[in-house]
């Protein structure tokens, strides 16, 4: 437990530096126990003594920022992926990094399934069609879509999100296979050692892995060609996993059948070429933005900070 706040002010509370602005849910939960200081506004004394840094969204935490905090021992991230933090610098300094653990997994998996169904069954395009009055005006029916049940789905990254995506889609009668750094003994799904081989044997490829130096732009033209013209790419991981310019080209040329995208290389920029395509479903990196997920992550962040300041093992430390 963190030391209780004393009546004579906030000075006895441990300092937690903030890499980016707080949201009310975090402030409400953390302010009673911690002195929350924006890193940019921290005076010399605070910067010299701060042991913990918190990221709420995905601000870049650079080597220079880390070096400027000599007492730093912990970076608490509020996300599942920690690619926005310079992990090399943390490793060198022996700084621990924690993530959101499984707080987002259910929502991310739900959203991946939602995007997959929306692309194959044209849900968003059909909704737009009805709303603009085209159904009533049209002779005949809306164009046929593609079946979800029975499709071969390849999951890249069978972590907690990928595992939930697999379980959900198995219930839709989809045939699941996956790629990850190594085969998982407990997973009842077929393993492929490369993303290209997985793509060649899949109708839909779902990206749910972490963004690292090894996975950056892992989905390039070769993978999209293997997925093929009837194939669909769903990305709820990070934009950087995909060569976005190549994705746009493949969709335009019909090399790839469709895409459901929640993440992009340079958010909030979304390639305008995608805006006019009706075989894609786009959203604003919102897969995990629900009150349930936010409450879940606040709980994990607080548990990590409480553990750290009371000398207990961290709840969700990332292996660096």
């Amino acid at each position, binding site marked *: 437990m963190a030391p209780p706040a004393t009546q004579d002010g906030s000075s006895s509370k441990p300092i937690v530096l903030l890499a980016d602005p707080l949201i009310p849910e975090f402030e409400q939960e953390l302010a009673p126990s911690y002195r929350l200081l924006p890193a940019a506004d921290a005076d010399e004394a605070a910067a010299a003594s701060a042991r913990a840094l918190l990221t709420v969204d995905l601000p870049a935490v650079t080597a220079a920022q880390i070096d400027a905090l000599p007492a730093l021992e912990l970076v608490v991230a509020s996300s599942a992926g920690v690619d926005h933090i310079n992990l090399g610098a943390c490793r060198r300094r022996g700084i621990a990094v924690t993530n959101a653990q499984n707080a987002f997994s*259910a929502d991310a998996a*739900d959203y991946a399934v939602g995007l997959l169904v929306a692309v194959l069954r044209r*849900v*968003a395009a059909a909704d737009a069609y009805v709303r603009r009055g085209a*159904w009533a005006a049209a002779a005949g029916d809306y164009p*046929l879509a593609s079946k*979800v049940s*029975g499709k071969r789905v390849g999951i890249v990254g069978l972590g907690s999100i990928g595992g939930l995506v697999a379980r959900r889609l198995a219930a839709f009668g989809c045939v699941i296979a996956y790629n990850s750094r190594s085969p998982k003994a407990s997973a009842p799904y077929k393993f492929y050692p490369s993303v290209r081989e997985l793509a060649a044997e899949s109708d839909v490829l779902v990206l749910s892995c972490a963004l690292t130096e090894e996975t950056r732009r892992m989905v390039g033209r070769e993978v999209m060609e293997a997925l093929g013209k009837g194939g669909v790419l769903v990305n709820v991981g990070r934009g950087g996993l995909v060569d976005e310019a190549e994705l746009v080209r493949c969709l335009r040329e019909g090399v790839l059948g469709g895409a459901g995208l929640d993440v992009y290389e340079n958010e909030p920029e979304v390639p305008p070429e995608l805006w006019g395509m009706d075989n894609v479903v786009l959203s604003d990196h919102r897969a995990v933005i*629900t009150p*349930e997920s936010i409450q879940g992550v606040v709980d994990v962040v607080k548990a990590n900070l409480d553990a750290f300041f009371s000398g207990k093992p961290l709840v969700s430390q990332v292996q660096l």
Partner: protein
Amino acid sequence: MDSLGVLLVAPMNAYLEQELDRRCRLFRLWESPADRRDDYLRAHASSIRAVVPYAPQGVDAAMIDALPSLEIVSSFSVGIDRVDLDACRRRGVRVTNTPDVLTDDVADLAVGLAIAALRKIPQADRYVRAGKWKSKGDFTLTTRFSGKRVGILGLGRIGLAVAKRAEAFDCPISYHSRSEKPFPKYKFYPNVVDLAANCDVLVVACSLNPETRHIVNRKVIDALGPEGVLINIARGAHVDEPELISALLEKRLGGAGLDVFEDEPFAPEQLFELDNVVLVPHVGSDTEETCRAMADLVLQNLEAHALNQPLLTPFSGKRVGIIGLGRIGLAVAKRVEAFDCPVNYYQRTKQDHPGYTYYPSVVELAASSDVLVVACPLNEHTRHIVNREVMEALGPRGVLINIGRGPHVDEAAMVAALLDGRLGGAGLDVFEDEPNVPEALLGMDNVVLVPHVGSATHETRTAMADLVLGNLEAHVAGKPLLTQVV
């Protein structure tokens, strides 16, 4: 079937149309102007022997009357609420539908719509396409689907497929249907309002009939409440649409995902501006794969009809459930097929009869049948195999036929069910305590009672006597027995 004249009521599927054109004499109703259709039908009345309708456009009594040569209606749909079945029966017109093939598609869409409605996927898509992410920041906060309480109206094939999918999202499942089903992990509510009051997402997945029309009314919508979401992938008429619209506009209902509407293709325009609804144009089964499978079933049914073979998916007759698909059960199946009765069966293990639908429990079989025939051997497993629960599942319009043995049926429970009107009727050749017949049955006019005469014909008794004599002769002559049991 070159000579079969087939009327297609609308251009519903390009592959179907092309194959009909290739294999039959095809008449395209839509090629004549709407006000000249009667003339068109009159002109081709003697040639048209088959009609292929679909869900939005059926076959009414007027059309059936206008087509004196009509023999079969082979619908490109599961639901045939727009086919006048009574008129078909009166005229002896056979009817087929395309069951099963679209179960997965409709269930996929139901869950897809639930996620899309809760997470506002189409709204986010429009937001990003309009460039608002960059200019206005993140779109709105939405609520989680996983773990939400899902209530299902109608736990038939589609309802069950929805339940299976939602379970994988850790959603607790409850349902309402005419009778409780043998799925202990799903909670049964005997009335719809209670179901709606105890779920977050209500999925309409029942068939449309006079009892289920407007089953989702103001009371149900209010019970679902301002956080609740309604998903309708069944028929528009299940929902009182004006009540739904006012509930959504007044925020008494949280949201909706709708594939079907009361007056298709007109979706209510008041909904077009709402961002808590997802509207799709009746595309529940509109996938390439499923439409192809449905078209193939229509073609195969027409072909079977033309060749005078049993139909693949008849709908005109009563659904007959057979307990025990041995020799007698199979012989019953073969006979009822000729009446265009869909055949269901229960057996300890699934048999290799693709035309008959297997049910792994007698209760499920009874719930999906209009007539239940007992045709299995009597042993310790099958004693009272037809118990109170099975008769409840068969229901007040169901009929029980027992040509097995008396003890297959819990006779006391049957008498009580018949007395209470919980069972529609019975035809009984066997009784638990023969020659005693329960006295309560003697005065009922919805039962037929015969004194264990299943095999009591001159011909069969003579054949049986010949077999006895043949076995004795073989024994005396030292030859193999004809029908050795032990």
